[in-house]
């Protein structure tokens, strides 16, 4: 393809390059800086292009229209020369490039603009694969999305063994890696490995890979250490230019294995998402078809997919959710000034059960202070401490911590039969039986030992913080500190302010949450706070339908089209029927007209059954028996609608009650505490776009579209 053709193709499109620049008016432009370098071994002169947006690594390189055009200028300038033997692209210190400039995407107004952005990326990047001289990408740092695609368009790639992350996160957000990723990657490394990067990793909490795996998968042809990565890459490039090094890549199997891999992925995707999110499926279809497409066809199909998806509600929700995690999660709404926080030099944990052990381990690891657990029973105490020490050994075994660190952690976590051991603790958290009188007694005992300003935190999932504090001399020090199970996996921490809780205690709780690397959301002292209230409501509607006579399988399947991480009955099993029943009772007591208690669930709990599903993924026959009865079955559609309407109604009530500050906090809670998906934006963007909000509440949660700030 000649230069003039390219220019024509780009400027002749309905949306001009200038117009695109205006859409992305706030673009932080990544400049493509060209410099001649003398290749070693007499391999001639190369143009080395550095991608650099002029900021340090905290603001990584991204590509908007102006950045793409800067790269285009650099490539065109190199193409015009006859005195060079290679072109190489690398990034600024620590960063290669992390993809498209997403901040401009919400400003894209129509499909024509979206298509023009997609096409511009291709028009520029593809030139790297179509120059007469060999082209190289030196992946020196983090590379994501469009950054990876720049590299894929080059004829050869090297990677630094030190890069922290490479990924194609598009499917995670609601896009496809459509600047060449779905076409080039499977043809480079084979479809199975490509699907891992294009689909599997994005759907696994947006997993990334490091330098050695980039090399192992064949994405890069050579790997060098970070200390002199670019110099050694240039040497390697020089040998390639001279023909002294031949790059051998395994041949890609485009036969039956290709189709088989695609079928497997399709099956996996359907099981996971039930068609709820269009992006991963679209990416899969592009990958599947890449083997029989020409470059032009492949890239054109990507342009269409990007244009469609950039206009999709799922992408809007995905970007909103992404921003929630990037921004709101780091600056919790309503947290008091952090200067009020008191330092924590020792932590007490009341209880030595499984939850207490998880908390002790987390506090010891993240706060690096002594943690003492107490229990009335020496055996339980020994077991609790032994659990923590065992977990430390596991971390050591996996190489996650050094043996010095393991020694330190073990020495830091101890047990005591007496609360005397809390006398110099600044923060004591209780994880005892969920009963108000028990917790009140425990706090009274703790208060007798600790200093007046020590913070008393409770991990209660549904009891009132205010009531729990009411009998203390210093009720202002009590905060709710509600973790989600498994503690090490789910980031959410609901921080609950009781009526008497003071700013210092609350600020200390938020500061502690930050040190624990948890996503803190401030909640009012309302029954079951946010996540449990909504999940209980949601599950309650499903159980209600079962109680009315819907087959449990049908009811459980009803919400599958939302693409939630697990079905309601599976969630019930994970939470534990007894806990679920307890929370539903609490909520029923508080809001009897909106929260029911399933008598069938009570029967399951009373039977002692804890598993809803058997090992064969079928509902346990005995449980199924207990779920029998009722004469008014509902359709899947009816149940789903009913559950969503209940959610919309309840969220509106919670916002009116001031349980959290904004709909964004509800969504942040559901994403980080229950793993609800990005394509729903948590839930409120979905309730808005599906018409449920309007129908139930007469208004949208986000009248101007979801905004995450």
């Amino acid at each position: 393809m000649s230069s003039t053709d390219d220019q024509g193709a780009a400027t002749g499109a309905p949306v001009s390059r200038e117009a695109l620049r205006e859409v992305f008016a706030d673009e932080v432009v990544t400049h493509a800086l060209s410099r001649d370098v003398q290749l070693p071994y007499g391999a001639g002169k190369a143009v080395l292009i550095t991608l650099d947006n002029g900021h340090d690594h905290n603001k990584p390189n991204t590509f908007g229209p102006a950045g793409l055009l800067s790269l285009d200028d650099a490539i065109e300038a190199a193409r015009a020369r006859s005195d060079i033997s290679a072109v190489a692209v690398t990034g600024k210190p620590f960063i290669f490039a992390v993809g498209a400039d997403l901040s401009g995407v919400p400003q894209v107004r129509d499909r024509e603009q979206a298509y023009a952005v997609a096409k511009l990326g291709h028009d520029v990047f593809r030139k790297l694969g179509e120059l007469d001289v060999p082209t190289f990408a030196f992946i020196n740092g983090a590379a994501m999305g469009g950054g990876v695609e720049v590299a894929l368009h080059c004829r050869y790639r090297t990677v630094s063994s030190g890069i922290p992350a490479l990924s194609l996160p598009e499917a995670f957000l609601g896009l496809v890696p459509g600047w060449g990723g779905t076409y080039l990657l499977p043809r480079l490394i084979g479809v199975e490995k490509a699907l891992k990067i294009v689909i599997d990793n994005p759907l696994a909490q947006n997993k990334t890979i490091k330098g050695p795996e980039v090399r192992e998968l064949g994405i890069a042809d050579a790997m060098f250490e970070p200390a002199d990565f670019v110099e050694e890459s240039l040497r390697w490039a020089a040998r390639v230019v001279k023909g002294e090094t031949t790059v051998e890549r395994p041949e890609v199997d485009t036969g039956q294995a290709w189709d088989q891999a695609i079928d497997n992925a399709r099956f996996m995707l359907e099981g996971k998402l039930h068609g709820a999110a269009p992006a991963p499926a679209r990416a899969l279809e592009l990958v599947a078809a890449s083997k029989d497409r020409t470059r032009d066809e492949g890239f054109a199909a990507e342009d269409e997919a990007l244009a469609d998806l950039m206009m999709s509600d799922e992408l809007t929700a995905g970007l909103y959710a992404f921003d929630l995690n990037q921004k709101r999660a780091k600056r919790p709404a309503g947290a008091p000034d952090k200067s009020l926080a008191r330092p924590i030099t020792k932590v007490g944990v009341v209880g030595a059960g499984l939850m207490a052990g998880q908390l002790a381990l987390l506090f010891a690891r993240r706060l690096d202070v002594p943690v003492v657990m107490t229990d009335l029973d020496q055996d339980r105490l020994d077991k609790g401490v032994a659990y923590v020490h065992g977990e430390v050994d596991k971390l050591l075994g996996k190489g996650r911590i050094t043996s010095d660190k393991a020694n330190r952690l073990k020495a830091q976590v101890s047990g005591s039969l007496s609360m005397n051991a809390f006398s110099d603790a600044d923060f004591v958290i209780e994880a005892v039986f969920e009963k108000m009188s028990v917790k009140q007694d425990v706090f009274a005992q703790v208060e007798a030992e600790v200093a007046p300003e020590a913070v008393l935190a409770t991990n209660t999932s549904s009891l009132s913080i205010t009531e729990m504090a009411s009998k203390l001399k210093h009720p202002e020090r009590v905060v709710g500190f509600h973790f989600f199970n498994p503690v090490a996996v789910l980031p959410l921490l609901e921080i609950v302010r009781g009526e008497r809780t003071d700013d210092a205690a609350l600020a200390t709780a938020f500061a502690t949450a930050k040190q624990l690397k948890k996503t803190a959301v401030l909640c009012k002292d309302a029954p079951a706070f946010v996540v449990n209230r909504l999940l209980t409501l949601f599950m309650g509607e499903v159980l209600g339908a079962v109680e009315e006579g819907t087959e449990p399988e049908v009811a459980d399947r009803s919400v599958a089209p939302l693409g939630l991480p697990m079905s309601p009955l599976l969630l019930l099993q994970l939470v534990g029927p007894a806990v679920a029943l307890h929370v539903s009772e609490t909520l029923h007591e508080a809001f009897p007209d909106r929260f029911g208690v399933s008598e069938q669930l009570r029967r399951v709990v009373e039977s002692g059954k804890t598993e809803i599903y058997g090992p064969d993924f079928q509902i346990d026959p005995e449980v199924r028996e207990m779920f029998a009865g009722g004469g008014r079955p509902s359709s899947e559609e009816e149940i789903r609608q009913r559950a969503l309407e209940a959610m919309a109604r309840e969220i509106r009530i919670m916002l009116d009650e001031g349980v959290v500050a904004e709909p964004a906090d509800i969504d942040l809670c559901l994403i980080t505490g229950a793993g609800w998906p990005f394509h729903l934006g948590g839930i409120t963007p979905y309730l808005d776009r599906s018409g449920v909000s309007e129908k139930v509440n007469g208004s949208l949660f986000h009248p101007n579209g979801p905004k995450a700030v």
Partner: protein
Amino acid sequence: MPRTARDVVFVDGVRTPFGKAGKGLYAETRADDLVVRVIRELLRRNPGLPPERVDEVAVAATTQTGDQGLTIGRSAALLAGLPRSVPGYAIDRMCAGAMTAVTTSGAGISFGAYDVAIAGGVEHMGRHPMGEGVDPNPRFLSEKLVDPSALVMGNTAENLHDRYPSITKERADAYALRSQEKVAKAYADGKLQPDLVEMLVRSAEQGYGLASADEPPRPETTLEGLAGLKTPFRAHGNVTPGNSAGLNDGATGAIIAAEDVAADLGLDARMRLVDFSFAGVDPEVMGEGPVPATERLLERQRMTMDDIGLVEINEAFAVQVLAFLEHFGVADDDARVNPWGGAIALGHPLASSGVRLMMQLARLFAERPDVRYGLTTMCVGMGMGGTVLWENTNWEGSAK
């Protein structure tokens, strides 16, 4: 048990291309990164040397703060990826830093405390101008311990012209021109490039680039041009930017080993350390330092300058080289002296230069099996000189 001194050999040397301080090649490149590149290249070029066999990393820098601080030998070793078991330290003898790194670690090897050492130096004079942060004791002046001119190297060079009235500005300029011409020829003949390791350089405005050749040389130099240059240190004086080394950035490094260990590991032994000497002179004429240092050395070895087949002398100033030559009765253009030119053309990143002299001498030895002995020598700020005597391991036993 009686102790036997071991023979010490120079195995290999590597340096970054030298840059001009200020707005030159390395304006946005860290000094420690230069050292790291050199260390890694030494190990790459000598695969027979297991990294854990390096017993010491001695790195010199004159200004030991910032990116030249933090015990640069140790920090560079860690940054270079040497095993953590390998120790390192920092050395300072101003211009003779790298030379001292070699003599000190060489002495340690001879003594039996080390088998192998990496010795080198760095100076990023752009980031660390000469005299950065110094705080001279007021007694220097109040007790007239040294003349104030002793602290400004250009002034000491003017003072040296006073001490050697026969060395005129014209002689100095002619010497400087020859240095430029010799470097240009050596470059054209590919003599200097083998010791260079190309270095990544960054510029926020231009992006990354690659330093592949020395930046300071001015092959276009003419006598007329030199004659017209200003004499910044003294009105109507003799010392000009043209007949002195500039302000430069660069790093050097060498592998020094016990000769038997080098043989065991299959490493080159390109020249043998025979002896070394450091001597003090009046700080006001520090350029004279190589004279007593060399005198002392030759006397101890019962040798004369006639026994020396090659001299690599650092060219901080032309006058200082000419004073040395005049003292030993050697002609200004003697072919034994700096055959491939010197610091006036190549640059003089203070503490790194000593090892540049050595790597150049080692290359020359390889071409000259007829030569048995060579010197590397240099003057040092605060009034010192250092000289190292080397024996050519390629010597074929004839002539000198």
